[in-house]
């Protein structure tokens, strides 16, 4: 009886942990390495309204996101893996027309590890994307808007 219970629990955990979205079909456009280029922001952290840009060329840090086909997303800082999650899409849209495939528009929101309170979203083309909250995140009481630009590595 106890063995059966353990078996049921293990099966349940296995199914739950495999509840990830593979990046097939139109999601395949995300697969690959995305390197951080810059972050643009409008803020009032110092009182007046200011525009600021952090650029990868001048920053002492590099960031990249890896989308793996099996439904895994990895975040790297200075080429060191910071975290890894399975992907569960809350929403995704990929433009299917447009003559240049790499210019077709993508919009997505992912629940990291299926957790709705830990999410990442992006918009852009299949070549360059704006990620909402990585590596820098909007602070409600300081920023008007903030955009993290990533470019796909070919």
């Amino acid at each position, binding site marked *: 009886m106890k063995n059966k219970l353990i078996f049921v629990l293990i099966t349940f955990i296995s199914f739950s942990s495999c509840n990830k979205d593979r990046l097939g079909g139109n999601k395949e456009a995300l697969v690959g390495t995305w390197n951080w280029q810059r972050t643009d922001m*409008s803020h009032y952290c110092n009182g007046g309204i200011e525009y600021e840009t952090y650029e990868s060329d001048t920053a002492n840090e590099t960031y990249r996101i890896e989308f793996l086909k099996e439904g895994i997303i990895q975040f790297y800082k200075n080429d060191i893996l910071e975290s890894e999650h399975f992907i569960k899409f809350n929403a995704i849209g990929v*433009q299917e*027309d*447009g*003559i*240049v*495939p790499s*210019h077709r*528009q993508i919009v997505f929101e992912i629940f990291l590890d299926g957790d709705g309170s830990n999410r990442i979203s992006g918009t852009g083309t299949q070549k360059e994307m704006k990620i909402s909250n990585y590596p820098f995140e909007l602070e409600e009481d300081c920023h008007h*808007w903030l955009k993290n630009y990533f470019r796909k590595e070919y």
Partner: protein
Amino acid sequence: MINSKSILLILLVNVGVVSCKKDKLKDEKSILIGNWEWVNTQHDFGWCEGESWEETLTPESEDENYSMFFYKKGVVEFYQNGNLLDKSRVVFDHFEINELGNFSFVIDLNNKEENRMSGYGNETSVNFGGFPFVGVAGCEDYDNYFSKG
């Protein structure tokens, strides 16, 4: 006496003709014939953030070349770095040219409204909407400039 088989045949031929429609580039439309090389793209964006920014994309900044070739028979080919991306039939929704040789056009590629592209230009340069960059309506705009090669 027209029987049902004849009606079916006429319908099929009609559907075939409509679905394969293309407009020859003759008379004033012949101004489009030939090779057009991408020069640059003016990108206006940020409207959805309440901002207004501009940037110029060039073959150097993008590390890519684009071109399109219009054939007299009513076919256009689109190229990226010399590789054929797409070949479509040209069906004009609109074309007009003035006495100075400035023209404007609206084309439905393969006769499909969802593949609508428009542009304007003259004998040597053309602004083409839809290739190589397409914007998100209401948030940004791309003006793609080509010169006759």
